[in-house]
């Protein structure tokens, strides 16, 4: 076996371990929730106009049986892994008997679509400005632009999103502010639908980009201002290598090494969804689903979503670890 393969296998083992630990912690924490999905369901049912206490007791028993909630927490834990091994996340408890995976898969593409695109744009934008601002330290325009992005960073995302919404949806109503597509849209795949979906994603994406670019920018700027004093950059400058080339191939290329790790982490974190975006813009996605699931004590669903997110982040770390020898040739495979 090549050392690289061994390295990959070892990292993979680590990945599995981290996933295992992460999911285990989440399993037990989610089962701590005082919200009982059966009581939730009873709550919903009694809301439908019944309050006969005898009937409620009867209902409680039947639901408990139906939802398969018997057995100690350890049995349920074991059961969970056995089921997971076959790729089954079990039925949702707040949307019984619909499988958790069905529910997640319905929202997931939206989250992935919006977040991937906006994360990438944020990454490119933040790093580009950061690199320029770090290299041309005296440039007033870059300074101002950086400052604007940095100042945007601490603005509570809720407020920023809402202000965008009010500006572009109300004061100057040019962009749609609700949902992933027009209400009552024809959902057969068509050019118009794609356009509509794109239009609906502009504000959510913009809000994510505006709050997110600042931190890349800060990181990149700091990296660049360190790198410009590195010998190979000074040498290239003395060698008369054109500035643009130095910025691209010498500075940015070297700064990218740590930034890519961050990017992988952010891409992995996509599976956390963005609750506030989804709330403010009514954008479909798994963030809101998660909150709902927590509210409903639906720990199957919470666990399913958490497991997804854990695997996402852990996989990102794994992939970046495995790829890092390729991105940064200096990293030797132990």
């Amino acid at each position, binding site marked *: 076996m090549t050392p690289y393969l061994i390295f990959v296998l*070892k990292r993979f083992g680590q990945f599995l371990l981290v996933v295992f630990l992460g999911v285990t912690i989440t399993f037990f924490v989610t089962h701590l929730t005082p919200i009982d999905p059966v009581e939730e369901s009873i709550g919903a049912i009694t809301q439908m106009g019944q309050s006969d206490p005898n009937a409620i007791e009867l209902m409680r028993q039947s639901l408990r049986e139906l939802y398969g909630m018997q057995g100690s927490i350890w049995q349920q834990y074991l059961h969970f892994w056995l089921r997971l091994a076959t790729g089954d996340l079990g039925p949702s408890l707040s949307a019984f008997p619909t499988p958790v995976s069905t529910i997640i898969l319905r929202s997931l593409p939206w989250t992935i679509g919006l977040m991937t695109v906006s994360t990438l744009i944020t990454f490119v934008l933040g790093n580009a400005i950061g690199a320029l601002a770090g290299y041309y330290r005296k440039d007033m325009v870059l300074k101002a632009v950086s400052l604007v992005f940095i100042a945007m960073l601490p603005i509570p995302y809720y407020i920023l999103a809402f202000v965008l919404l009010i500006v572009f949806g109300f004061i100057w109503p040019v962009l749609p502010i609700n949902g992933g597509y027009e209400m009552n849209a024809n959902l057969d795949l068509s050019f118009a639908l794609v356009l509509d979906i794109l239009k609906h994603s502009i504000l959510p994406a913009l809000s994510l980009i505006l709050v997110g670019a600042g931190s890349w920018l800060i990181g990149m700027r700091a990296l660049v201002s360190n790198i410009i004093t590195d010998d190979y950059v000074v040498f290239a400058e003395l060698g008369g290598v054109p500035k643009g080339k130095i910025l691209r191939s010498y500075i940015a290329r070297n700064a990218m090494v740590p930034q890519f790790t961050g990017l992988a982490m952010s891409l992995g974190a996509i599976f956390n969804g963005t609750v506030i975006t989804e709330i403010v813009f009514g954008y479909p996605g798994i963030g809101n689903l998660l909150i709902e699931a927590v509210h409903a004590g639906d720990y199957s669903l919470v666990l399913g979503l958490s497991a997804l997110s854990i695997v996402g982040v852990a996989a990102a770390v794994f992939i970046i670890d495995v790829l890092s020898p390729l991105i940064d040739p200096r990293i030797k495979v132990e």
Partner: protein
Amino acid sequence: MTLLSLSHVTKIYRQGGMLGRRLITAVKDVSFEIGDEPEILSIVGESGSGKSTVAAMILGQAEPTEGELQFAGKTVAIHNRAERTAFMKEVQPVLQNPFEAFNPLKRVDRYLFETASNFSTSGKRPNRREVEKMADTALHHVGLTLEEVKGRFPHELSGGQLQRVAIARALIPEPRLLVADEPVSMVDASLRMAIVNLFGRLKNELGLSIIYITHDLATAYYVSDNIIIMRKGEIVERGRARAVLDDPQHAYSRALKDAVLAAEFGEVG
């Protein structure tokens, strides 16, 4: 009784982690001794020939893969803090780059005081005055005084001063052996002589033995009693320093000697 003896010491590094297959024999079947008489033993040789690895093993920082190291008749074994402290009282290092050997953010006297209070010869923890006294004594051996050094940051001292402070620190536990791994390679010619001369004086005045690892054959010739020439982990030649260098026997030793650029007007090749 010998102070230090290495018998058939081999050190193999495994590269590629736990499952890795690449083995590097850094040191191969090396044996030598330092007797009770104080001496300066030079170890010279090409880059990567295992000189630093030998030093690390003598300092207890690395364990030999095979063979045995004995210090004052006892096998070197460090399992706990007490053993480590006891060992460090006897063997102390001098590091390569004086500018790197001290934390630039800390005052240099700190290391003197720490050493003094951790390795007091009387056995119990000394008070502040005793500590300063010990430090001052050690500094006197290297031609400095505590006054010159106290409260100073590394960047406030010259390289020569720093290296001398480092040596003074190593002297505080009153060790019997100093291991100096390339102590002069980063300093310029005039400083180099100052330090090498200091080694000679310490040997004579304090009865210290010193293992002097270097690339600089000229200073090795100048200061050492015995010499070991290493190549690819093995000792290729050894003996009294001047005898060996005046008339090297092994082909590699000769190549090494030839490569030395004499500071006289002449041309290469």
